């Protein structure tokens, strides 16, 4: 391996920004085993203080649930991200969510994906904690997360490397 390979290796990774403003916490703090036990993949969660959900990286919208409670983005490097706004919010049948993108649409980091009415979600008795997971976690040898602090949308919260 030459000197230049070492430099190339250095930024060989995908940095993901916070999808929402709020407190970034470990995925293990999510009180739902589907997320907390990493069944859907490794990740972080945001306890949001604002309902706007932004693209954590450049990519393509792979799926938007018709109910607007979850959105998937696939990055050009093949990381499959899922952002799930609140817990059990599929049961709210779309009411607190406004979808701003459609499937197959190209997005840039920071583009608005969904607007959630956090007060409505809370009023319905649901938790607003929002997990962001890497559905194909097994494809990455290293997934770092930077939890335990307040974040603005776009602040670095995870880094993936092959």
């Amino acid at each position, binding site marked *: 391996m030459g000197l230049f390979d070492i430099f190339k290796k250095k930024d060989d990774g995908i940095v993901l920004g916070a999808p929402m403003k709020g407190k970034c916490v470990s995925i293990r703090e999510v009180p739902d085993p589907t997320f907390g036990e990493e*069944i859907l993949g490794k990740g972080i969660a945001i306890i949001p203080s604002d309902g706007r959900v932004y693209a954590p990286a450049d990519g393509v919208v792979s799926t938007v649930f018709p109910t607007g409670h979850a959105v998937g983005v*696939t990055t050009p490097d093949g990381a499959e991200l899922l952002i799930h706004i609140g817990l059990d919010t599929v049961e709210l049948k779309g009411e607190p969510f406004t979808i701003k993108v459609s499937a197959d649409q190209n997005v840039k980091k920071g583009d608005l994906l969904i607007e959630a009415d956090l007060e409505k979600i809370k009023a319905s008795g649901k938790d607003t904690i929002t997990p962001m997971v890497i559905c*194909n976690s097994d494809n990455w040898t290293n997934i770092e997360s930077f939890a335990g602090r307040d974040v603005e949308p776009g602040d670095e919260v995870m880094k993936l490397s092959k």
Partner: protein
Amino acid sequence: MTMKQFQYTIKDELGIHARPAGLLVKKASEFKSTVSVDNGTKKGDAKKIMSLMMMAVKQGQTVTFTIEGEDEAAAAEALEAFMKENL
């Protein structure tokens, strides 16, 4: 090689959403066989969460599972039981 197939009509009013998709992937991944799912309009890989969720399978849709591999008989049986119990 032979293969196993079964069909299942989704009863869950919310369709295959995130939680059941995750659990289904976990179940399918217990087996060596490949597991593909087809709802007539889209095909998916039952071992890949995003692939399953992109199918956006709704209540009332019939999905066909095709299982191929050395443990296909056991996998088909376990997956059919899983679908009946969860979806």
